[in-house]
């Protein structure tokens, strides 16, 4: 072992020891003499026979107010009347607040850190008055512990004389005014915040190390600081669609894990009834960050990553239409995450859930949303800006930069799905941006958009949010449709069945997606007429979705299916997404929705759609297009292991939630007191931990295969679209010459005569544009 390594290990060892010792630095303050937490042990008499009376202990306290506590101890066996000195003592602890001596008792009582005790003079009486000043925060319960000691005076002039004394304990809990009022006890505990912050810091450190390592492996000889700076600068300033796509991918992958850590922390909290692993504030903040992270910082950027990488390649463009706007879109997104997480580091993470319902989200103070919410809302506005920038870019690219032969109805389905998704995003985003700007103004300069008492409308937020929010969930599922269409057709070695009806179904979902938002608000006090309309339109969404599922099945018919990892993910998608789609049909029904709304049935449904749909689609895309991006295939054995554990784990986590929903377990609950829910919840938590651990297989596969994967060549899977005609990885700019897409239908004179489908006939006129 070299000297250097020994030094490094010694340093690490010292740091480890120092870290291990840190928590012990704050020890409990010691009292007068040997008075510890266990009572007045300076007198070792027996316990229990002494009576302690405390007058003036309030039922609940008001923040900052002072209370006079009259403490008196008595013990018939040790009468104090005849004694003149050394009669008793006390030691009072409280979990919050400050202490002082009462009027006329300044000589007898003294303050201690975290409590009060008698002075040496105060040893000679059995009654004391202590002033307790309550803490400012009313949302807590203060615990008092008082040890009182009746002393028989025998120490006076007789040495230590600590025989024949007796002490006992008095305990009380006083809730703050805010902790009362029907609410339960507030749990005070801080560790999981530190766990979350430590996990994030640890992740960022590992991530930085990985960056340096990747740079080192690129060129081991040229490894120096100047080279690293130049290399980092290249990545920080790149505008190439493939490199921005890689940035999006790495970013979304990092946040996929951060979002997962949050979910595992609150799953542990929910594993048993009445658990107190997390405090209420932490739980509320964690599920908020989990939802927002997974939707806005993991799913959307992951889609943007594939759209960036693949769209120009599929339509034969050299780059996206606006490369610099594209890069700006990414960097706005990257910095918005700092705002979203800004509150977490100070223990004031936003606690308004990803739906950010006003007027709770526009409130502040003791019972309102936490201080970090303002930063969080600003972050959401930035996210909207980022999505607008990247959305306009994809729309412009697809509309204007298609290579010859890539007509609208000869466009790969992934590009079609990205087009539909971005068009939906572009139309729906203004509602979110307007809504969050209103919210930000409500929080910062005192406008009253959502305050009913001042003429604002609390339901306005729900309308604005869900006018964006429902198209948004289609924005994250529609690209997965495109990916599955590509993967299943390629794996079955066939063309997709019913290309035209697929496109119409996509467009149909895109249009219907805008008129169903009210099904999120069927119990919100919304107008009954709107409820009726939304119920009908929501039912209709099932039809185009059904067309897509049966077209996928028909694509497999007569094919020759190969079981690559990406095929497995797409088949898994078919199973779980169909289940999620079916459970979605339960919500537009009034009699079912009034029960299922905001219960775990909803949680089960949208995780079947978002994990079993979006995430499975994205994983399919990772295995499918990784060879195109790196020139090497991912390891199939690790991929199979990853798929099997995740598929089973996903069903084990989310299927039991349907049952919890039927039994009426409300979502966003920090804890529950129904013991019969513990069994399913423990099972869910255990499954979630296993499923979470399995994701490291994918991370390892991505890193390992970059160097050691099997070389893939141009078209490893047998796909037809233009990205498979270029080298892997593609050059920059992506095509030296703009390619021309051929058309098998024209070559074989098979189109349009023999193509007898309804949709073909409808499109006959412009099909060969």
């Amino acid at each position: 072992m070299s000297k250097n390594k020994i030094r490094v290990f010694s340093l690490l060892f010292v740091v480890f020891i120092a870290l291990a010792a840190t928590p012990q630095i704050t020890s409990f303050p010691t009292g007068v003499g040997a008075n510890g937490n266990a009572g007045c042990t300076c007198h070792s008499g027996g316990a229990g026979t002494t009576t302690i009376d405390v007058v003036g202990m309030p039922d609940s306290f008001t923040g900052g107010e002072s209370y006079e506590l009259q403490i008196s101890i008595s013990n018939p066996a040790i009468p104090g009347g005849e004694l003149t000195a050394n009669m008793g003592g006390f030691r009072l602890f409280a979990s919050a607040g400050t202490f002082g001596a009462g009027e006329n008792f300044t000589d007898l009582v003294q303050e201690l850190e975290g409590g009060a005790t008698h002075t040496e003079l105060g040893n000679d009486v059995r009654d004391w008055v202590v002033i307790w000043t309550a803490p400012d925060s009313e949302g807590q319960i203060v615990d008092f512990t008082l040890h009182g000691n009746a002393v028989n005076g025998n120490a006076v002039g007789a040495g230590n004389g600590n025989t024949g004394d007796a002490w006992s304990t008095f305990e009380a809990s006083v809730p703050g005014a805010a902790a009362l009022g029907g609410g339960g006890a507030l749990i005070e505990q801080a560790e999981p915040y530190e766990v979350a912050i430590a996990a994030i810091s640890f992740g960022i450190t590992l991530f930085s190390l990985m960056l340096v390592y990747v740079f080192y492996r690129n060129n081991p000889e040229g490894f120096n600081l100047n080279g690293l700076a130049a290399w980092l600068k290249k990545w920080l300033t790149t505008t190439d669609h493939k490199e921005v796509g890689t940035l999006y991918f790495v970013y979304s992958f990092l946040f996929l894990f951060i979002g997962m850590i949050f979910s595992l922390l609150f799953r542990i909290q929910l594993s048993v009834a009445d658990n107190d692993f997390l405090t209420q504030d932490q739980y509320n903040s964690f599920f908020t960050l989990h939802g927002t992270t997974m939707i806005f910082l993991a799913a959307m950027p992951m889609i943007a990553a594939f759209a960036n990488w693949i769209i120009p390649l599929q339509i034969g463009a050299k780059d996206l239409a606006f490369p610099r706007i594209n890069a700006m879109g990414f960097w706005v997104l990257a910095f918005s995450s700092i705002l979203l997480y800004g509150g977490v580091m100070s223990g004031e993470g936003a606690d308004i859930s990803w739906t950010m319902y006003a007027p709770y989200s526009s409130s502040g103070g003791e019972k309102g949303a936490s201080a970090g919410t303002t930063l969080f809302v600003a972050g959401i506005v930035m996210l909207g800006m980022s999505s607008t920038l990247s959305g306009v870019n994809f729309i412009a690219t697809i509309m204007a930069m298609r290579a010859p032969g890539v007509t609208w109805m000869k466009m790969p389905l992934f590009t079609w799905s990205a087009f539909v998704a971005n068009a939906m995003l572009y139309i729906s985003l203004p509602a979110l941006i307007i809504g969050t700007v209103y919210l930000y103004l409500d929080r910062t300069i005192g406008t009253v958009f959502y305050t009913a008492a001042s003429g604002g409308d609390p339901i306005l937020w729900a309308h604005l949010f869900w006018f964006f929010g429902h198209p948004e969930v289609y924005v994250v599922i529609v690209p997965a449709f495109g990916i599955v269409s590509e993967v299943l057709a390629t794996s079955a070695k066939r063309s997709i069945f019913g290309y035209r009806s697929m496109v119409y179904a996509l467009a149909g979902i895109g249009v219907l997606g805008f008129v169903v938002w009210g099904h999120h608000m069927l119990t919100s006090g919304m107008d009954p007429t709107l409820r009726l309309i939304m119920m009908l339109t929501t039912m209709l969404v099932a039809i185009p979705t059904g067309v897509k599922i049966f077209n996928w099945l028909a694509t497999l018919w007569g094919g020759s299916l190969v079981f690559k990892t990406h095929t497995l993910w797409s088949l898994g998608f078919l199973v779980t997404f169909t289940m999620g789609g079916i459970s979605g049909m339960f919500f537009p029904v009034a009699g079912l929705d009034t029960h299922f709304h905001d219960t775990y049935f909803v949680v089960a449904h949208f995780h079947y759609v978002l994990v079993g749909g979006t995430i499975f689609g994205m994983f399919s895309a990772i295995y499918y297009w990784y060879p195109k991006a790196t020139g090497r295939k991912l390891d199939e054995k690790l991929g199979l292991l990853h798929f099997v554990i995740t598929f089973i784990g996903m069903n084990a986590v989310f299927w039991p939630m349907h049952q919890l929903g039927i039994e009426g377990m409300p979502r966003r609950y920090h804890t529950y007191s129904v013991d019969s829910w513990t069994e399913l919840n423990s099972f869910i938590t255990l499954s979630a931990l296993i499923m979470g651990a399995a994701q490291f297989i994918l991370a390892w596969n991505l890193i390992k295969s970059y160097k050691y994967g099997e070389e893939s060549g141009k078209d490893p899977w047998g796909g037809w679209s233009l990205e498979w005609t270029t080298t892997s990885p593609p050059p920059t700019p992506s095509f030296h010459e703009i390619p021309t897409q051929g058309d098998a239908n024209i070559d074989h004179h098979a189109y349009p005569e023999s193509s007898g489908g309804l949709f073909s006939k409808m499109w006959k006129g412009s099909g060969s544009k």
Partner: protein
Amino acid sequence: MPTVNSWNASAQNVGGSTVGPADYTIFRSLLDTWNFWSLVVGIFTFILLLYLVIRFREESPDDPKLDGIKPGVFPKERDNLTLELTWFIVPTILVLYLTFIAWQSMITVWVDPYSEELAEESFDITIEAYQWGWNFYYHDEIVVLNETGNLTTFVTPMGSEIKDGSIGIDGNLYLPCDTPIKAKIVTLNDGGELPVLHAPFMPEWAIKEDAVPGLETYLAFTPKESGTFDLFCAEYCGQQHSKMLAKVHVVGQCGTGE
């Protein structure tokens, strides 16, 4: 305005909301129908998928590519009018059928709060939500007599004196059995309270409705079994959302039929 002349059954904690809605709710019959059709659609789809995956799996590694797929060439289109129309029309019929079934439930759970018919026979209460708890006000009385005819329990309506045997002032909700309940839902508005959304959720009757500041919303339902049931807050309302709980006691004799 019901006066229940029967011995008190409130002490028996029969039933229980932790197993989901009661059998007599419209939720149960709808859930059965929806479960049935979900199984039909699901089983059909998954058996078809399984069959296709097994029947049309790859025979040999150098199986020729079907449909003449070449990189850079849009493949030969395949479609079939009859099939596509089938899976457009059949789901449409199913969806229309399910909508037809669902229609009735809308009238049942979203009853017109201003209906005169309901006003005549209903037991009226107001549920007032605040951070984090509930106030219940009664606009009618329930008098429950025991077997010997002596008064055992008496729900205190808003504004009336508290008498011997009064209930309804302990933070829990008391309801008569077999009587339509009309609940007005409001948020507490006294200046000191933060006006945020809440939602009383009673799993036993599969109902919930948001309490919205500045708005009056309504719930209507009819308990048909006595017992003690849960009331949760279902709309996220801040720190102690999960502690915003109450019990619902259904008192009086059930099964007299109304």
